[in-house]
């Protein structure tokens, strides 16, 4: 039983069709990575799921209760301290101030933020710190569904790995579902249970790959090897424009796990 079902989703900006016949399922507790080249409509699809955009046409069934989103940029409110930024979602849920503060301190500790950092304004913090706060803001409301719009793409590799670890830890503890979009295959291999490939003009889903290795057993070597295997796959090569050729698009992704397994 999937918690998010999307059928026949189409979306147009004026006369330009940006998403065409999208069918997607996301099960509870599953991490799904949507990969594809820039401009293929990944963000548009994510914004539709987040409720920021209304699609031109679609059947969407969403059973997830709490949804949080991390954007490409931290998008912190510049006039609020780190603590008030982290607890923004809790305040919207009418959690009393003392409880908010307590939870902010707990999550700050797990994110590697000091009490002093919590009193600072975003402009006083480095880019990495701001990303941690954005992650804290998303995790603190304990969402059932976490939407990630390439939030780690601008970070250095050390910080990326640390945030991946924090994210995976949260997913394991909470059993949240994650829908992440990325153009970095290795990031997808590292974090996801399933990878869906998307191509542009108009945005379509053209194949999916299930990663059966459990997260605990994913070593760096396995991640590199799997990424290399995926990079050699025709659909991915053609989708990213690395190889010439056409894709057979008659097959729709109605059923879950219909693609190749790795």
């Amino acid at each position, binding site marked *: 039983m999937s918690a998010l079902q999307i059928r026949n989703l189409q979306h147009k900006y004026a006369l330009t069709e940006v998403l065409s016949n999208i069918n997607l399922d996301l099960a509870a507790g599953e991490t799904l990575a949507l990969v594809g080249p820039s401009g293929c409509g990944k963000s548009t699809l994510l914004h539709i799921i987040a409720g*920021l955009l209304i699609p031109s046409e679609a059947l969407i069934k969403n059973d997830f209760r709490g949804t949080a989103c991390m954007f490409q940029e931290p998008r912190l409110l510049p*006039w609020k301290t780190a603590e008030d930024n982290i607890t923004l979602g809790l305040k*919207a849920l009418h959690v009393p101030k003392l409880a908010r503060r307590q939870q902010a301190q707990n999550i700050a500790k797990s994110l590697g933020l000091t009490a002093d950092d919590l009193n600072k304004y*975003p*402009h006083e913090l480095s880019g990495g710190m701001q990303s941690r706060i954005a992650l804290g803001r998303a995790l603190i*409301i304990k969402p059932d569904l976490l939407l990630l719009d390439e939030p780690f793409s601008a970070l250095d590799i050390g910080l990326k790995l640390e945030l991946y670890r924090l994210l995976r830890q949260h997913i394991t503890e909470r059993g949240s579902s994650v829908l992440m979009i990325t153009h970095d295959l290795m990031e997808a291999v590292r974090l996801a249970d399933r990878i869906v490939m998307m191509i542009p003009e108009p945005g379509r889903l053209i194949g999916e790959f299930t990663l059966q290795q459990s997260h605990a057993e994913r070593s760096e070597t396995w991640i590199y090897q799997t990424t290399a295997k995926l990079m050699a796959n025709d659909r991915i090569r053609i989708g990213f424009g690395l190889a010439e050729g056409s894709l057979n698009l008659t097959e729709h992704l109605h059923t879950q796990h219909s693609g190749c397994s790795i």
Partner: protein
Amino acid sequence: MNRLRNLLPNTLSYLWSGWGALASLLLFCAVWELVGEYYGDLILPGPLEVIGQLKLMFNSGIAGPELIISGRRTLYGLSLALAVGSLLGMLAGFSMTTSMLARPLITLLLGMPPIAWLVLAMLWFGLGDATPVFTVFIACLPIVFAGAMQGTRTLDNHLKAVAQVYRLPWHMRLTDIYLPHLASYLFPAWITALGTSWKVVVMAELLSTSDGIGAALAVSRAQLDTSSTLAWVVAVLGVLLAIEYLLLEPIKRHLERWRVGVSQ
């Protein structure tokens, strides 16, 4: 606690920054004195004489009541303009259509000379309190309206998306997203409106009432009393400077303490 700890150094550094303003004002007084000495007391009395005259006016009980009368009129007209202008400007800013409709009207209202409003107000309300109050209101309204509308329109769409994703209720969107952003547009507009309000109230009183600073200026003009005239001007400017630097500027600094390089 942290904010409390920062209060004292912030206040001191604000007061310290006042030395620059004070030096600039004193330099102006020096030039005034120089020109005054060249032209003589009848044309341009020096700053010391004017301040002496102002002190005399306060001591004899002339200045106080007149200032209070003008201040009251300014306060009514300005508060009304700030409230109505900020609210309507924000509402107009929420929608593209109303902003487009409002823009030419603002240009029209900003371009209309206050003296024309004054003549109309005299015809509509006669020679009472309502005339200066209305003129101040109508002269300040478009300034505040434009500031509020511009502020609302320029809020980053990214932050609006954050508000939507985290399901902020309407009152939180207002207090946590819109108002802090709006403040940096509203405050300069309010300060401009404050300056305009004093100018307009004095002008309105000069032509339409028998009390207030404007009326007192009319009397000193009739008596060819340059030092009294300048004393009134100094009184008006003094009140203006006090309101801006002792009230509005500290509030602005407090609200915008999150900006780079301000106070913290």
